[in-house]
């Protein structure tokens, strides 16, 4: 049964929330049952923020993914420490190696290290690191099509010029490339 449970975590400002929302919108347009939920707290900017996304064939019961994640998208070091154990055995951990200076210690998960900031820089904007990570996730799981993500962009970011769409499309592709053809753990070798 299709049941993707994605945990995205990083600093505030790294686009964690929009990454998750793109996935949820994309999944919805493909007639999945979806949910998205942020961690929320008082303004403690600079702390670790995360959100959970569920994409499923069946109604979503619990939208919270802090255990049993099928995939974790890890954007900074504190998030890795906090959430490494949250992924199921056999699941995926995508690590933003541009900012995360340590390695995953578990052996039972598939880990990909992606220099997302650098790759985003290549497309012209370091802020798109989240989209690079999203591209990698899509490539590995085919959970949602790129097309659905592209058409979700205006819903999350509002109407934007074509330039913006193109940049994001490139970021998705770079993310895809960063993991395809590489086995786990080798991506950032």
């Amino acid at each position, binding site marked *: 049964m299709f049941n993707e449970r994605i945990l995205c975590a990083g600093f505030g400002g790294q686009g964690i929330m929009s990454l998750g*929302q793109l996935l*949820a*919108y994309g999944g*919805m347009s493909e007639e999945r*049952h*979806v*949910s*998205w*939920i*942020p961690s*929320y*707290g*008082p303004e403690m900017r600079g702390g670790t923020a995360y959100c959970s996304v569920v994409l499923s064939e*069946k*109604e*979503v*019961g*619990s*939208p*919270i993914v802090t*255990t*049993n994640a099928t995939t974790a998208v890890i954007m900074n070091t504190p998030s890795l420490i906090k959430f490494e154990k949250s992924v199921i055995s056999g699941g995926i951990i995508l690590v933003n190696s541009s900012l995360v200076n340590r390695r995953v210690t578990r052996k039972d998960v598939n880990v990909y290290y992606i220099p997302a900031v650098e790759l985003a820089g290549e497309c012209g904007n370091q802020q798109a690191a989240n989209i690079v990570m999203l591209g990698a996730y899509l490539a590995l799981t085919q959970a949602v099509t790129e097309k659905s993500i592209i058409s979700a962009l205006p*819903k999350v970011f509002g109407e934007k010029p074509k330039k913006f769409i193109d940049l994001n499309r490139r970021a998705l592709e770079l993310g895809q490339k960063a993991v395809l053809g590489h086995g786990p753990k080798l991506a950032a070798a």
Partner: protein
Amino acid sequence: MPKSLMKGNEALAKGAILGGCTHFFGYPITPQNEIPEFLARELPKTGGIFLQAESEIAAINMVYGAAAAGGRPMTSSSSPGIALMQEGISLLAAAELPSVIVNVQRGGPGIGTIQPSQCDYFQMTRGGGNGDYSIIALAPSTAQESAEMMIDAFELAQRYRTPVFIVSDGMLGQMMEPVTMPSKVPQQSVKKDWAAVGHDNRRPPITIKTLALDPCDLEQINLRLQEKFMRIRESESRYETYRISEAELIFCGYGSVGRILKNSVDQLRHEGVRVGLLRVKTLWPFPVEAFNVLPPRCRHILSTEMNCGQMIDDVRLAVNGKIQVTHYGRPGGIIPTPEELADHAKNILAGGCQ
């Protein structure tokens, strides 16, 4: 209608507009802020009024004034904010003023946390304001239901001339889900000849009031109110059953837990364990009748809540000793996982935890 992805709070706000809300008065508090923020943007577009009050007490009394003057007002808050409204809520019930009050619950007691909780079950169902009164309390489990129940709330408020609670929580409020927005309800414009709108020199003056110094008068008022509550009890309780056939153990839950439990039931059924779910949709009137249609095999009801055990009282009262009832809860803002709930049920069926 196309689907849109919305937070539960936004679905509530949108539902309010569709339900004919004319006025929002409220005071900010997490985790319900998306409701006033949405309405600050959208309500004026429909000719409605959004006004931030200086406090929860002012908010509920503005609601009182607007309802007395024939409006369709609402307010929204979270746990401690609702505590502050208790006097006002008692007045609304006593004066029979149609109004809607949303509680997006957070962890308590005290200032507590802003994380999701269901620890206000008693606050929602047993007053807390003074005197004998009851408030219809609708408990959605999804964003879709948030929108629908909000529309319902406005209708019930007008029909019975009474305040209505929407009981949500931080999880439902903050999560986004697809919603197919219902269409605007054609308002059966109830004639409010009881409202204080100025007599225009055409009829005797009207007074909206709750004071009745003579206890004989107040007793009559109470009996009339009780009669109304009885009517509501007979017609407005709502619930859903899920995979209860042949169930030996039935989870009873509402709101966030009500939906999480579906995962637990699916998991257990998949494992061949016979469990089912009774999801309560109206905390008051509590769907007592639902307990009469449980499968005969059912030997245990697990009242499951994000609190230390409150709804269990109503479950016990409903079964009146006929089935064993226990509580499982996580207080303080913790959301239970479907797995832990399933484990707990298995444990019970295996003879533990009794």
